């Protein structure tokens, strides 16, 4: 077990990669609770891969990673892992996003039993025709819930405009048809391939003794048999930065229009740390362009181009990325034109060094503050690892970004990469 001390943020990390390939990271904290996440690199954007022990690619229905997440809770003896964890006083949860599925427990007592159960239920699938069928009804209601949420619809609509074939443009939950086409056989195949320990991470943050927990994980994993470790071969789709559709509009039963403008980022292969650095650079640039410290923001308010819900964000992973600027507004066309204009002007910007340094200072502070939150630490460790970086080195990464480093971003702001999506009230 390796012990790494990070003085700048006053945290210590205990880490080990087990024989079966599972990466384990433990961060002790003097909190009452312990937060654990067991995570596989299997999210909604994987839909073609070569299953373990096979030679041929298979294509799987949309929404399968999420469906699998729901079904993992069912145990062989008919009990439910969520209930068993609740019996131990723990809170159980799970989520699926584009690149991962995470199984989570929060506990303040019986933590050893809770962690053993978390490791066991995620590694012991039990699917049959009946329980698969029953789950379809629940997930279709989940899909209907998102269908009525303007925030979810605008996000999905914008992604469908930005990308032409990357599965990121599909709802994580899938579609009514794809959900209905899922069978127990496909679920077993996905589990066997993507829930191999070498494709997973186990992270524990909170009120624990790291040596004891590492022993617990070693013992738990030592008792189980897995096929030989091999890299998962998956087909990931890479696109150029031309958008699929320039504009689109839908109608919903709402009172104020909701508009999003998106900019597709070009595909790049990033070395260690570089994806995180790139992401941080874009965040700084967006803050300097649209943040509450800018004249632009005040102008948007003065011209009444934004009402509520103004936000700007960047998403970046190994295969794709985009910038999203959105608001609720009655001046739909003016808002779109204003934001597009600002984005295109970023092809040629000058940055005020003083403003730049202030934003770096704020990023630093907000990063340190986030360490109050065990969920942030656990998922930060995982996300940074998946992006080939190290959460605990972020202070150093932020400090090293220089104003001239932002110049490389200029080439991203081109017309063919821009799209918009609008939700109008139904008349």
């Amino acid at each position, binding site marked *: 077990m390796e012990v790494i001390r990070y003085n700048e943020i006053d945290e210590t990390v205990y880490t080990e990669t087990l024989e079966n390939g599972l990466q384990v990271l433990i961060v002790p904290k*003097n909190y009452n609770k312990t937060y654990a996440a067991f995570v596989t690199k299997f999210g909604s954007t994987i839909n073609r891969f070569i299953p373990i022990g096979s030679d041929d690619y298979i294509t799987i229905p949309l929404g399968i990673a999420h469906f699998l997440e729901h079904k993992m809770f069912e145990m062989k003896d008919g009990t439910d892992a969520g209930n068993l964890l609740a019996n131990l006083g723990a809170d159980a949860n799970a989520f699926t996003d584009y690149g991962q599925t995470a199984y989570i427990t929060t506990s303040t007592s019986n933590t050893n039993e809770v962690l053993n159960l978390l490791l066991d239920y995620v590694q012991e699938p039990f699917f049959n025709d009946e329980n698969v069928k029953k789950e379809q009804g629940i997930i279709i209601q989940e899909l*209907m819930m998102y269908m009525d949420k303007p925030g979810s619809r605008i996000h999905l609509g914008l992604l469908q405009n930005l990308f032409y074939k990357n599965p990121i443009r599909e709802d994580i939950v899938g579609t009514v048809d794809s959900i209905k086409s899922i069978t127990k056989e496909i679920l077993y195949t996905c589990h066997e391939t993507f829930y191999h320990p070498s494709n997973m991470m186990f992270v524990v943050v909170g009120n624990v003794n790291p040596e004891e927990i590492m022993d617990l994980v070693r013992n738990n994993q030592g008792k189980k048999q897995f096929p030989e470790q091999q890299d998962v071969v998956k087909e990931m789709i890479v696109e150029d930065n031309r958008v699929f559709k320039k504009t689109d509009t839908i109608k919903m039963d709402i009172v104020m229009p909701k508009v999003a403008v998106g900019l597709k980022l070009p595909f790049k292969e990033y070395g260690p740390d570089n994806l995180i650095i790139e992401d941080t650079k874009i965040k700084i640039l967006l803050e300097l362009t649209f943040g509450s410290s800018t004249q632009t923001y005040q102008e948007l308010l003065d011209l009444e181009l934004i009402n509520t819900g103004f936000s700007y964000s960047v998403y970046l992973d190994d295969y794709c990325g985009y910038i999203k600027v959105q608001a609720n507004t009655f001046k739909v066309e003016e808002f779109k034109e204003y934001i597009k204009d600002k984005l295109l002007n970023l092809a040629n910007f000058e940055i005020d060094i003083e403003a730049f340094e202030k934003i770096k200072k704020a990023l630093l502070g907000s990063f340190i*503050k986030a360490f109050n*939150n065990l969920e942030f630490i656990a998922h930060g460790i995982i996300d940074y690892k998946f992006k080939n970086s190290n959460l605990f080195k972020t202070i150093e990464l932020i400090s090293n970004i220089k104003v001239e480093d932002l110049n490389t971003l200029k080439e991203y702001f081109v017309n063919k990469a821009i799209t918009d999506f609008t939700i109008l009230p139904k008349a």
Partner: protein
Amino acid sequence: MEKFEINNIETTLIKTNKFKTITFFVVLFGDFTKENATQRNLLAKLLQSTTKNYPTKKAVANKLFDLYDANIFANSFPMYKTNLTVFGLQIVNPSFVQDDVLLNEAISFFKEMIFNPNVDENGFNLNEFNEKKRNLRDNINNIYNNKTTYAFNRLLEIMGPDEIINVNSLGTLEDLEKITPESLKEFYDNLIKNEMAKIYVTGDIDQDVIIPLLNDLNFSNQRRELEPSSKETYTAKEVRQVSDTQNINQAQLMMGFRTNTNALDELYVPMAVFNMMFGGMVSSDLFRVVREENSLAYSVGSSIFFDNRLLIVSAGIDAKNYELATDLIIKELEEYKQGKVDSDLLQVAKDNLNSSLSETADDPFSNLTFIIKNSLLKNYSSEDIIELVKQVTVEDIVKASRDVELDVIYCLKGEENGSN
């Protein structure tokens, strides 16, 4: 927990080194009424937006960046007929950034927000006032877009149109139009002059550092009688069923129950445990019956509102399952009333409730909020409640369930399903 006075203001310090931050709350306690709800909300928005010496959002944002992204806020929320205005400041503990002036600078800015609003001889700065007014109007209108919130508000409106439960802390369009920059300035002056103030601090900081920082806080700080929880009694009446239609995919089912239990009553803790068993956790009866056994919903659960003596069940369902879902929910409650209580589930509910109580201490905001709310009630600590939870028996649960009476069933349905 240390208690002391600063300038006659009761101050509570929870000293701990577990956080990376230092958090300060200055809380004003006053009355929450239909007449002042909108003013309170608009005022909080204005106070946290700009100040006299930092009259633009740009100036405020730059100041906060300079303070390592300090959080500074004013918000206002009710407990029954009592209103809490919370001024908050959270900064990084200066030891992480080796900055000797951070604490003093942040506190000065915090006082600036509370005592030096962006006003002139005509009241609040007109541009800021109009901007925040427009923003609040949009927020009120946008409730319609969030179907769950919309259905929840409609339920409360039907349950008690003239009760305080029907007063939304967001405010109303009608009241908003009556507010002027002058009237709001007057409201602010009264608030500072007449409401009772208390200070709360948590982080790695000592009493002797805090006192000189805050000893010029100036509130007249009048002690007053507060009404933080309802004492109104409810006698069961005929259940009312109301539905509306909108163009939506999923129906929002809301069931409003009345109780005669508030946080000062004997049944307080048993009622909290009952709510967990009934619909307050994933292994609850409602989750099991409505979601797992009958696949009727993805989201279903119950919440308890002690200050207003309400228990609300909500579920997102297909409108054609309305009868089945409501029957199942009512039947589950009846089982309890007839004394059928699963003692294993009782233990699970107690453990889960205690676990979340013990977690409140792990977050500075939730910990301070918990302590502030309880200071208006029986002054329980989370440890006190944890002990009381452990003592809850099957008989207590039956008693609590018999105090829950269905009042209104409300359903917001999709148009094509409207006839079902």
